[in-house]
Protein backbone atom coordinates (compact mmCIF):
# COMPACT_ATOMS: atom_id res chain seq x y z
CA UNK A 1 0.00 0.00 0.00
CA UNK A 2 1.29 3.44 -0.82
CA UNK A 3 1.36 5.67 2.21
CA UNK A 4 0.68 8.74 0.09
CA UNK A 5 -2.80 7.38 -0.57
CA UNK A 6 -4.03 8.12 2.97
CA UNK A 7 -3.99 11.81 2.11
CA UNK A 8 -6.25 11.40 -0.94
CA UNK A 9 -9.53 11.84 0.98
CA UNK A 10 -8.24 15.23 2.11
CA UNK A 11 -7.02 16.07 -1.40
CA UNK A 12 -10.53 15.40 -2.71
CA UNK A 13 -12.02 17.40 0.19
CA UNK A 14 -9.72 20.36 -0.43
CA UNK A 15 -10.57 20.43 -4.14
CA UNK A 16 -14.30 20.19 -3.47
CA UNK A 17 -14.57 22.57 -0.51
CA UNK A 18 -11.62 24.96 -0.88
CA UNK A 19 -10.78 25.19 -4.60
CA UNK A 20 -14.29 24.97 -6.10
CA UNK A 21 -15.89 27.56 -3.75
CA UNK A 22 -13.14 30.07 -4.56
CA UNK A 23 -13.56 29.23 -8.23
CA UNK A 24 -17.27 29.99 -7.82
CA UNK A 25 -16.41 33.49 -6.55
CA UNK A 26 -14.49 34.12 -9.77
CA UNK A 27 -17.29 32.56 -11.86
CA UNK A 28 -20.04 34.64 -10.20
CA UNK A 29 -17.93 37.79 -10.43
CA UNK A 30 -17.77 37.50 -14.21
CA UNK A 31 -21.31 36.35 -14.99
CA UNK A 32 -24.78 37.89 -14.80
CA UNK A 33 -27.87 36.29 -13.25
CA UNK A 34 -28.51 34.35 -16.48
CA UNK A 35 -24.99 32.91 -16.35
CA UNK A 36 -23.46 34.65 -19.38
CA UNK A 37 -20.10 36.39 -19.28
CA UNK A 38 -19.98 40.04 -18.22
CA UNK A 39 -17.61 42.55 -16.65
CA UNK A 40 -20.53 44.63 -15.38
CA UNK A 41 -20.08 43.42 -11.80
CA UNK A 42 -16.47 44.53 -11.71
CA UNK A 43 -17.45 47.95 -13.09
CA UNK A 44 -20.26 48.21 -10.53
CA UNK A 45 -17.86 47.20 -7.78
CA UNK A 46 -15.88 50.30 -8.73
CA UNK A 47 -18.72 52.37 -7.26
CA UNK A 48 -17.60 51.18 -3.85
CA UNK A 49 -13.99 52.27 -4.26
CA UNK A 50 -14.50 55.04 -1.69
CA UNK A 51 -15.75 52.45 0.83
CA UNK A 52 -12.73 50.28 0.03
CA UNK A 53 -10.41 53.26 0.53
CA UNK A 54 -12.08 54.00 3.86
CA UNK A 55 -11.64 50.37 4.95
CA UNK A 56 -7.97 50.45 4.02
CA UNK A 57 -7.49 53.82 5.73
CA UNK A 58 -9.18 52.85 9.03
CA UNK A 59 -7.38 49.48 9.15
CA UNK A 60 -4.05 51.15 8.42
CA UNK A 61 -4.61 53.56 11.32
CA UNK A 62 -5.64 50.67 13.57
CA UNK A 63 -2.59 48.64 12.56
CA UNK A 64 -0.29 51.58 13.31
CA UNK A 65 -1.89 52.09 16.73
CA UNK A 66 -1.58 48.35 17.47
CA UNK A 67 2.12 48.51 16.61
CA UNK A 68 2.80 51.58 18.77
CA UNK A 69 0.73 50.27 21.69
CA UNK A 70 1.85 46.65 21.41
CA UNK A 71 5.58 47.10 20.82
CA UNK A 72 6.46 48.21 24.38
CA UNK A 73 4.35 45.38 25.83
CA UNK A 74 6.09 42.77 23.66
CA UNK A 75 9.50 44.24 24.54
CA UNK A 76 8.72 44.25 28.25
CA UNK A 77 7.57 40.61 28.01
CA UNK A 78 10.70 39.54 26.16
CA UNK A 79 12.94 41.06 28.84
CA UNK A 80 11.00 39.56 31.77
CA UNK A 81 11.38 36.17 33.40
CA UNK A 82 9.51 33.22 31.89
CA UNK A 83 7.07 33.33 34.80
CA UNK A 84 6.19 37.03 34.33
CA UNK A 85 6.00 36.91 30.53
CA UNK A 86 3.94 33.72 30.71
CA UNK A 87 1.45 35.42 33.03
CA UNK A 88 1.20 38.52 30.80
CA UNK A 89 0.70 36.26 27.78
CA UNK A 90 -2.10 34.44 29.57
CA UNK A 91 -3.75 37.76 30.50
CA UNK A 92 -3.58 38.92 26.86
CA UNK A 93 -4.96 35.62 25.53
CA UNK A 94 -7.80 35.29 28.05
CA UNK A 95 -10.12 37.93 26.50
CA UNK A 96 -9.43 36.45 23.05
CA UNK A 97 -11.10 33.24 24.15
CA UNK A 98 -14.34 35.11 24.62
CA UNK A 99 -16.37 35.62 21.49
CA UNK A 100 -15.44 38.94 19.84
CA UNK A 101 -19.12 39.82 19.46
CA UNK A 102 -19.47 39.87 23.24
CA UNK A 103 -16.34 41.96 23.76
CA UNK A 104 -17.46 44.42 21.13
CA UNK A 105 -20.90 44.53 22.75
CA UNK A 106 -19.10 45.44 25.97
CA UNK A 107 -17.58 48.46 24.23
CA UNK A 108 -21.04 49.48 23.04
CA UNK A 109 -22.16 49.70 26.68
CA UNK A 110 -19.13 51.83 27.51
CA UNK A 111 -19.31 54.23 24.57
CA UNK A 112 -23.07 54.73 24.13
CA UNK A 113 -24.64 58.12 24.60
CA UNK A 114 -26.10 56.91 27.90
CA UNK A 115 -23.12 54.61 28.42
CA UNK A 116 -20.60 54.46 31.21
CA UNK A 117 -18.18 57.15 30.04
CA UNK A 118 -20.93 59.66 29.37
CA UNK A 119 -22.51 58.88 32.75
CA UNK A 120 -19.20 59.70 34.42
CA UNK A 121 -18.95 62.93 32.43
CA UNK A 122 -22.55 63.63 33.36
CA UNK A 123 -21.65 63.70 37.06
CA UNK A 124 -19.43 66.69 36.33
CA UNK A 125 -22.10 68.27 34.17
CA UNK A 126 -20.25 67.54 30.94
CA UNK A 127 -21.42 65.91 27.76
CA UNK A 128 -22.94 63.69 26.60
CA UNK A 129 -20.25 63.27 23.98
CA UNK A 130 -20.98 61.43 20.76
CA UNK A 131 -18.55 58.52 20.87
CA UNK A 132 -20.38 55.56 19.42
CA UNK A 133 -21.23 55.53 15.70
CA UNK A 134 -18.01 57.37 14.88
CA UNK A 135 -14.93 56.35 12.94
CA UNK A 136 -12.95 56.61 16.15
CA UNK A 137 -15.14 53.93 17.72
CA UNK A 138 -14.53 51.63 14.74
CA UNK A 139 -10.76 52.13 15.07
CA UNK A 140 -11.01 51.45 18.81
CA UNK A 141 -12.90 48.22 18.13
CA UNK A 142 -10.30 47.07 15.60
CA UNK A 143 -7.38 47.90 17.90
CA UNK A 144 -9.05 46.18 20.82
CA UNK A 145 -9.88 43.00 18.93
CA UNK A 146 -6.68 42.58 16.94
CA UNK A 147 -3.87 43.91 19.15
CA UNK A 148 -3.03 40.40 20.48
CA UNK A 149 -2.18 39.40 16.89
CA UNK A 150 0.42 42.18 16.93
CA UNK A 151 1.88 41.40 20.34
CA UNK A 152 2.24 37.61 19.88
CA UNK A 153 4.53 37.60 16.79
CA UNK A 154 6.49 40.60 18.14
CA UNK A 155 7.07 38.81 21.41
CA UNK A 156 8.15 35.56 19.80
CA UNK A 157 10.74 37.37 17.67
CA UNK A 158 11.99 39.59 20.50
CA UNK A 159 12.40 36.67 22.89
CA UNK A 160 15.03 35.35 20.48
CA UNK A 161 17.11 38.57 20.71
CA UNK A 162 19.93 37.54 23.04
CA UNK A 163 20.58 39.47 26.22
CA UNK A 164 24.27 39.53 25.24
CA UNK A 165 23.53 41.44 22.05
CA UNK A 166 21.82 44.23 23.97
CA UNK A 167 24.50 44.24 26.68
CA UNK A 168 27.22 44.42 24.04
CA UNK A 169 25.61 47.55 22.58
CA UNK A 170 25.33 49.07 26.06
CA UNK A 171 28.95 48.22 26.90
CA UNK A 172 30.06 49.90 23.72
CA UNK A 173 28.39 53.06 24.96
CA UNK A 174 25.07 53.12 23.13
CA UNK A 175 22.32 55.13 24.82
CA UNK A 176 19.00 53.35 25.48
CA UNK A 177 17.53 55.17 22.47
CA UNK A 178 20.34 53.93 20.22
CA UNK A 179 20.06 50.38 21.55
CA UNK A 180 16.41 50.49 20.61
CA UNK A 181 16.80 52.07 17.19
CA UNK A 182 19.96 50.27 16.05
CA UNK A 183 19.73 46.87 17.72
CA UNK A 184 16.26 45.91 18.93
CA UNK A 185 14.22 47.51 16.16
CA UNK A 186 16.13 46.00 13.21
CA UNK A 187 16.21 42.57 14.85
CA UNK A 188 12.46 42.66 15.52
CA UNK A 189 11.59 43.63 11.94
CA UNK A 190 10.31 40.14 10.95
CA UNK A 191 7.92 40.24 13.91
CA UNK A 192 6.73 43.73 12.94
CA UNK A 193 6.00 42.52 9.40
CA UNK A 194 4.06 39.48 10.59
CA UNK A 195 2.16 41.57 13.14
CA UNK A 196 1.15 44.14 10.54
CA UNK A 197 -0.27 41.47 8.23
CA UNK A 198 -2.02 39.62 11.08
CA UNK A 199 -3.78 42.84 12.19
CA UNK A 200 -4.41 44.47 8.83
CA UNK A 201 -6.01 41.49 7.05
CA UNK A 202 -8.84 40.83 9.55
CA UNK A 203 -9.29 44.58 10.11
CA UNK A 204 -9.72 45.48 6.45
CA UNK A 205 -12.29 42.71 5.92
CA UNK A 206 -14.31 43.10 9.12
CA UNK A 207 -18.03 43.62 8.88
CA UNK A 208 -19.29 43.32 12.42
CA UNK A 209 -17.16 45.77 14.35
CA UNK A 210 -18.07 48.52 11.90
CA UNK A 211 -21.77 47.73 12.26
CA UNK A 212 -21.76 47.54 16.04
CA UNK A 213 -19.54 50.51 16.83
CA UNK A 214 -19.75 52.57 13.65
CA UNK A 215 -23.52 52.66 13.18
CA UNK A 216 -25.03 52.94 9.72
CA UNK A 217 -22.76 55.75 8.55
CA UNK A 218 -19.46 53.89 8.73
CA UNK A 219 -19.98 50.94 6.41
CA UNK A 220 -16.81 49.16 5.41
CA UNK A 221 -16.17 46.90 2.45
CA UNK A 222 -17.07 43.80 4.51
CA UNK A 223 -20.50 45.28 5.23
CA UNK A 224 -21.09 45.88 1.51
CA UNK A 225 -20.19 42.25 0.75
CA UNK A 226 -22.48 40.98 3.50
CA UNK A 227 -25.36 43.08 2.12
CA UNK A 228 -25.02 41.44 -1.31
CA UNK A 229 -25.29 37.94 0.18
CA UNK A 230 -27.53 38.15 3.24
CA UNK A 231 -28.96 41.66 3.13
CA UNK A 232 -31.72 43.39 1.23
CA UNK A 233 -29.41 44.16 -1.67
CA UNK A 234 -29.19 40.45 -2.56
CA UNK A 235 -26.83 40.28 -5.55
CA UNK A 236 -24.27 37.44 -5.30
CA UNK A 237 -22.68 38.42 -8.62
CA UNK A 238 -21.81 41.91 -7.42
CA UNK A 239 -20.88 40.49 -4.01
CA UNK A 240 -18.50 38.03 -5.64
CA UNK A 241 -16.90 40.82 -7.68
CA UNK A 242 -16.24 42.89 -4.53
CA UNK A 243 -14.99 39.77 -2.70
CA UNK A 244 -12.61 39.07 -5.57
CA UNK A 245 -11.21 42.59 -5.37
CA UNK A 246 -10.76 42.29 -1.60
CA UNK A 247 -9.12 38.87 -1.93
CA UNK A 248 -6.69 40.11 -4.58
CA UNK A 249 -5.86 43.16 -2.45
CA UNK A 250 -5.04 40.96 0.56
CA UNK A 251 -2.96 38.54 -1.53
CA UNK A 252 -1.12 41.48 -3.11
CA UNK A 253 -0.24 42.96 0.27
CA UNK A 254 0.93 39.56 1.54
CA UNK A 255 3.17 38.86 -1.42
CA UNK A 256 4.61 42.39 -1.62
CA UNK A 257 5.55 42.21 2.05
CA UNK A 258 7.23 38.84 1.47
CA UNK A 259 4.93 37.29 4.07
CA UNK A 260 4.27 34.23 1.89
CA UNK A 261 7.87 33.51 0.93
CA UNK A 262 9.29 32.92 4.37
CA UNK A 263 10.27 29.40 5.30
CA UNK A 264 8.54 29.71 8.64
CA UNK A 265 5.09 30.48 7.21
CA UNK A 266 3.70 27.40 8.98
CA UNK A 267 4.98 28.59 12.31
CA UNK A 268 3.53 32.07 11.85
CA UNK A 269 0.06 30.81 11.06
CA UNK A 270 -0.33 28.80 14.24
Amino acid at each position, binding site marked *: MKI*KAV*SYPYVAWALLFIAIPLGLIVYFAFTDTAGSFTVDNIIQAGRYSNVLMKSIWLSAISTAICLVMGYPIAYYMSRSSAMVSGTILLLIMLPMWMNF*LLRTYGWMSILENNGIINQIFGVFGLGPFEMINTQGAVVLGMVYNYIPFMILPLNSVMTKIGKDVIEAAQDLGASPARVLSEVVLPLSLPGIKTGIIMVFVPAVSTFIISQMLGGGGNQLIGDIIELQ*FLGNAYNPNLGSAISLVLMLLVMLIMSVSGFLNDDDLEEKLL
Partner: protein
Amino acid sequence: MKTFAKTYLGVFMAFLYAPIFVLIIFSFNESKGRTFTGFTWKWYSALFHDAAIMDALLTTLIVAITASVFATVMGTAAAVGLNRMEGKFRSGIMGLTYLPILNPEIITGVSFMLLFVVAKNALNSVGVPFQFGWATLIIAHITFNVPYVILNVLPKLRQMDGSLVDAAMDLGCSHWQAFYKVVIHEIRPGIVSGFLMALTFSLDDFVVSYFTTGAKHQTLSVLIYAMTKKRVSPKINAISTLLFVVVLIVLIAVNLVERRNINRNRQAVRDRKKEED
Protein backbone atom coordinates in the same frame (compact mmCIF):
# COMPACT_ATOMS: atom_id res chain seq x y z
CA MET B 1 11.73 53.50 33.82
CA LYS B 2 10.60 50.35 35.62
CA THR B 3 7.62 52.09 37.25
CA PHE B 4 6.71 53.69 33.94
CA ALA B 5 6.70 50.28 32.23
CA LYS B 6 4.57 48.80 34.99
CA THR B 7 2.09 51.69 34.87
CA TYR B 8 1.75 51.32 31.12
CA LEU B 9 1.21 47.58 31.47
CA GLY B 10 -1.50 48.27 34.07
CA VAL B 11 -3.27 50.77 31.83
CA PHE B 12 -3.08 48.34 28.93
CA MET B 13 -4.61 45.53 30.99
CA ALA B 14 -7.38 47.89 32.14
CA PHE B 15 -8.09 48.59 28.46
CA LEU B 16 -8.20 44.84 27.68
CA TYR B 17 -10.52 43.99 30.55
CA ALA B 18 -12.74 47.10 30.70
CA PRO B 19 -15.50 45.80 28.38
CA ILE B 20 -15.46 42.38 30.02
CA PHE B 21 -15.87 43.79 33.53
CA VAL B 22 -18.64 46.06 32.34
CA LEU B 23 -20.48 43.03 30.94
CA ILE B 24 -19.98 41.11 34.17
CA ILE B 25 -21.19 43.96 36.42
CA PHE B 26 -24.28 44.63 34.34
CA SER B 27 -25.21 40.94 34.26
CA PHE B 28 -26.22 41.44 37.92
CA ASN B 29 -28.16 44.64 37.28
CA GLU B 30 -31.82 44.72 38.31
CA SER B 31 -32.93 47.06 35.51
CA LYS B 32 -32.34 46.76 31.80
CA GLY B 33 -30.77 50.21 31.56
CA ARG B 34 -27.23 51.44 31.93
CA THR B 35 -27.54 52.54 35.54
CA PHE B 36 -27.02 50.04 38.31
CA THR B 37 -30.24 49.82 40.29
CA GLY B 38 -29.79 46.68 42.35
CA PHE B 39 -28.40 43.16 42.48
CA THR B 40 -30.18 40.25 40.83
CA TRP B 41 -29.64 36.73 39.51
CA LYS B 42 -32.73 36.91 37.31
CA TRP B 43 -30.89 37.19 33.95
CA TYR B 44 -29.08 33.95 34.68
CA SER B 45 -32.27 32.03 35.35
CA ALA B 46 -33.84 33.66 32.28
CA LEU B 47 -30.85 32.41 30.31
CA PHE B 48 -31.36 28.79 31.34
CA HIS B 49 -35.08 29.00 30.59
CA ASP B 50 -34.50 30.44 27.12
CA ALA B 51 -35.10 27.53 24.72
CA ALA B 52 -33.40 29.30 21.79
CA ILE B 53 -30.20 29.89 23.75
CA MET B 54 -30.07 26.33 25.07
CA ASP B 55 -30.68 24.98 21.56
CA ALA B 56 -27.90 27.21 20.18
CA LEU B 57 -25.51 26.03 22.89
CA LEU B 58 -26.23 22.41 22.00
CA THR B 59 -25.86 23.13 18.26
CA THR B 60 -22.52 24.84 18.85
CA LEU B 61 -21.20 21.91 20.86
CA ILE B 62 -22.42 19.28 18.37
CA VAL B 63 -20.99 21.14 15.37
CA ALA B 64 -17.66 21.91 17.05
CA ILE B 65 -17.08 18.38 18.39
CA THR B 66 -18.18 16.60 15.19
CA ALA B 67 -16.17 18.92 12.96
CA SER B 68 -13.00 18.87 15.03
CA VAL B 69 -12.99 15.06 15.48
CA PHE B 70 -13.54 14.57 11.76
CA ALA B 71 -10.94 17.21 10.89
CA THR B 72 -8.41 15.62 13.25
CA VAL B 73 -8.75 12.18 11.63
CA MET B 74 -8.69 13.49 8.07
CA GLY B 75 -5.98 16.06 8.79
CA THR B 76 -3.68 13.53 10.48
CA ALA B 77 -4.06 11.13 7.56
CA ALA B 78 -3.43 14.00 5.14
CA ALA B 79 -0.27 15.02 7.00
CA VAL B 80 1.07 11.44 6.97
CA GLY B 81 0.55 11.22 3.21
CA LEU B 82 1.80 14.75 2.47
CA ASN B 83 4.94 14.06 4.49
CA ARG B 84 5.87 11.35 1.96
CA MET B 85 5.19 13.56 -1.05
CA GLU B 86 7.42 15.93 -2.94
CA GLY B 87 7.23 18.27 -5.87
CA LYS B 88 4.46 20.27 -7.47
CA PHE B 89 1.52 18.14 -6.33
CA ARG B 90 2.55 18.54 -2.69
CA SER B 91 3.09 22.31 -2.94
CA GLY B 92 -0.24 22.64 -4.76
CA ILE B 93 -2.07 20.87 -1.94
CA MET B 94 -0.16 22.85 0.70
CA GLY B 95 -1.14 26.04 -1.13
CA LEU B 96 -4.81 25.02 -0.96
CA THR B 97 -4.34 24.22 2.73
CA TYR B 98 -3.02 27.69 3.51
CA LEU B 99 -5.91 29.42 1.72
CA PRO B 100 -8.60 29.14 4.43
CA ILE B 101 -6.12 30.52 6.99
CA LEU B 102 -4.75 33.33 4.85
CA ASN B 103 -8.00 34.45 3.24
CA PRO B 104 -10.18 36.96 5.07
CA GLU B 105 -12.88 35.03 6.94
CA ILE B 106 -15.67 36.76 5.08
CA ILE B 107 -14.31 35.48 1.75
CA THR B 108 -14.25 31.91 3.08
CA GLY B 109 -17.80 32.32 4.39
CA VAL B 110 -19.12 33.80 1.17
CA SER B 111 -17.44 31.12 -0.97
CA PHE B 112 -19.12 28.36 1.06
CA MET B 113 -22.45 30.10 0.69
CA LEU B 114 -22.04 30.20 -3.10
CA LEU B 115 -21.13 26.49 -3.18
CA PHE B 116 -24.09 25.48 -1.06
CA VAL B 117 -26.54 27.67 -2.98
CA VAL B 118 -25.37 26.11 -6.27
CA ALA B 119 -25.53 22.62 -4.74
CA LYS B 120 -28.99 23.31 -3.33
CA ASN B 121 -30.38 24.51 -6.66
CA ALA B 122 -28.86 21.56 -8.52
CA LEU B 123 -30.04 18.95 -6.00
CA ASN B 124 -33.52 20.42 -5.55
CA SER B 125 -34.05 20.49 -9.32
CA VAL B 126 -33.55 16.72 -9.46
CA GLY B 127 -35.84 16.23 -6.49
CA VAL B 128 -33.25 15.71 -3.74
CA PRO B 129 -34.16 17.75 -0.66
CA PHE B 130 -31.17 19.79 0.53
CA GLN B 131 -31.26 22.77 2.87
CA PHE B 132 -28.78 24.90 4.74
CA GLY B 133 -28.43 23.29 8.16
CA TRP B 134 -26.36 20.72 10.00
CA ALA B 135 -24.58 19.44 6.88
CA THR B 136 -23.54 22.86 5.58
CA LEU B 137 -22.38 24.03 9.01
CA ILE B 138 -20.36 20.90 9.72
CA ILE B 139 -18.79 20.74 6.25
CA ALA B 140 -17.72 24.39 6.51
CA HIS B 141 -16.29 23.90 10.00
CA ILE B 142 -14.38 20.76 8.98
CA THR B 143 -12.90 22.65 6.05
CA PHE B 144 -11.50 25.55 8.05
CA ASN B 145 -10.37 23.18 10.84
CA VAL B 146 -8.33 20.66 8.81
CA PRO B 147 -5.51 23.09 7.92
CA TYR B 148 -4.78 23.69 11.62
CA VAL B 149 -4.51 19.93 12.24
CA ILE B 150 -2.21 19.46 9.23
CA LEU B 151 0.03 22.38 10.23
CA ASN B 152 0.33 20.98 13.77
CA VAL B 153 1.00 17.37 12.76
CA LEU B 154 3.40 17.90 9.82
CA PRO B 155 6.29 19.31 11.91
CA LYS B 156 6.03 16.38 14.34
CA LEU B 157 6.26 13.93 11.45
CA ARG B 158 9.30 15.73 10.12
CA GLN B 159 11.00 15.64 13.53
CA MET B 160 10.27 11.92 13.92
CA ASP B 161 13.17 9.52 13.49
CA GLY B 162 12.40 7.60 10.29
CA SER B 163 14.36 4.56 11.44
CA LEU B 164 11.72 3.95 14.13
CA VAL B 165 9.24 2.86 11.48
CA ASP B 166 11.89 0.73 9.78
CA ALA B 167 12.72 -0.89 13.09
CA ALA B 168 9.06 -1.69 13.75
CA MET B 169 8.67 -3.21 10.30
CA ASP B 170 11.88 -5.22 10.63
CA LEU B 171 10.40 -6.64 13.80
CA GLY B 172 7.39 -7.81 11.83
CA CYS B 173 4.90 -4.95 11.96
CA SER B 174 2.74 -4.28 8.94
CA HIS B 175 2.50 -0.69 7.63
CA TRP B 176 -0.69 -0.21 9.60
CA GLN B 177 0.72 -1.71 12.82
CA ALA B 178 3.84 0.44 12.50
CA PHE B 179 1.55 3.44 12.17
CA TYR B 180 -0.68 2.91 15.18
CA LYS B 181 1.98 1.35 17.41
CA VAL B 182 4.84 3.75 16.66
CA VAL B 183 3.98 6.79 14.53
CA ILE B 184 0.81 7.76 16.44
CA HIS B 185 2.72 7.91 19.72
CA GLU B 186 5.47 10.04 18.21
CA ILE B 187 3.12 12.61 16.70
CA ARG B 188 0.50 12.64 19.46
CA PRO B 189 1.38 16.12 20.79
CA GLY B 190 0.77 17.53 17.30
CA ILE B 191 -2.54 15.70 16.96
CA VAL B 192 -3.72 16.88 20.38
CA SER B 193 -2.80 20.52 19.83
CA GLY B 194 -4.31 20.39 16.32
CA PHE B 195 -7.54 19.00 17.74
CA LEU B 196 -7.70 21.58 20.52
CA MET B 197 -7.02 24.41 18.08
CA ALA B 198 -9.74 23.12 15.74
CA LEU B 199 -12.20 22.79 18.62
CA THR B 200 -11.47 26.32 19.85
CA PHE B 201 -11.83 27.90 16.41
CA SER B 202 -15.07 26.00 15.85
CA LEU B 203 -16.58 27.03 19.17
CA ASP B 204 -15.57 30.66 18.62
CA ASP B 205 -16.43 30.95 14.93
CA PHE B 206 -18.99 33.50 13.88
CA VAL B 207 -18.31 34.62 10.32
CA VAL B 208 -18.29 31.25 8.52
CA SER B 209 -21.26 29.97 10.57
CA TYR B 210 -23.18 33.15 9.76
CA PHE B 211 -22.98 32.45 6.02
CA THR B 212 -23.64 28.70 6.24
CA THR B 213 -26.26 28.35 8.98
CA GLY B 214 -29.80 27.22 8.26
CA ALA B 215 -33.06 28.67 9.52
CA LYS B 216 -33.62 26.02 12.20
CA HIS B 217 -30.50 25.52 14.26
CA GLN B 218 -28.15 28.42 14.88
CA THR B 219 -24.82 28.44 16.65
CA LEU B 220 -24.44 30.48 19.82
CA SER B 221 -22.37 33.19 18.11
CA VAL B 222 -24.98 33.67 15.37
CA LEU B 223 -27.69 33.95 18.03
CA ILE B 224 -25.59 36.41 20.03
CA TYR B 225 -25.21 38.51 16.88
CA ALA B 226 -28.99 38.62 16.47
CA MET B 227 -29.30 39.62 20.14
CA THR B 228 -26.75 42.45 19.88
CA LYS B 229 -28.80 43.92 17.03
CA LYS B 230 -31.63 44.43 19.51
CA ARG B 231 -29.14 46.32 21.69
CA VAL B 232 -30.60 46.04 25.19
CA SER B 233 -30.77 42.45 26.35
CA PRO B 234 -29.13 41.74 29.69
CA LYS B 235 -29.07 38.01 28.91
CA ILE B 236 -26.02 38.73 26.72
CA ASN B 237 -24.23 40.03 29.81
CA ALA B 238 -25.09 36.84 31.65
CA ILE B 239 -23.82 34.66 28.77
CA SER B 240 -20.59 36.67 28.67
CA THR B 241 -20.02 36.25 32.38
CA LEU B 242 -20.60 32.50 32.24
CA LEU B 243 -18.31 32.07 29.23
CA PHE B 244 -15.62 34.16 30.89
CA VAL B 245 -15.77 32.04 34.03
CA VAL B 246 -15.63 28.80 31.99
CA VAL B 247 -12.65 30.02 29.96
CA LEU B 248 -10.89 31.22 33.10
CA ILE B 249 -11.32 27.85 34.82
CA VAL B 250 -10.16 25.91 31.73
CA LEU B 251 -7.07 28.11 31.27
CA ILE B 252 -6.10 27.89 34.94
CA ALA B 253 -6.57 24.11 34.87
CA VAL B 254 -4.46 23.73 31.72
CA ASN B 255 -1.78 25.93 33.25
CA LEU B 256 -1.71 23.90 36.47
CA VAL B 257 -1.42 20.62 34.54
CA GLU B 258 1.43 22.05 32.47
CA ARG B 259 3.29 23.26 35.56
CA ARG B 260 2.84 19.86 37.21
CA ASN B 261 4.22 18.14 34.09
CA ILE B 262 7.22 20.47 34.03
CA ASN B 263 7.88 19.81 37.72
CA ARG B 264 7.49 16.08 37.22
CA ASN B 265 9.97 16.14 34.34
CA ARG B 266 12.42 18.12 36.45
CA GLN B 267 11.99 15.60 39.24
CA ALA B 268 12.62 12.73 36.81
CA VAL B 269 15.81 14.40 35.57
CA ARG B 270 16.98 14.93 39.16
CA ASP B 271 16.24 11.30 40.06
CA ARG B 272 18.19 10.06 37.08
CA LYS B 273 21.14 12.24 38.01
CA LYS B 274 21.10 10.82 41.54
CA GLU B 275 21.11 7.28 40.17
CA GLU B 276 24.05 8.09 37.93
CA ASP B 277 25.93 9.49 40.91
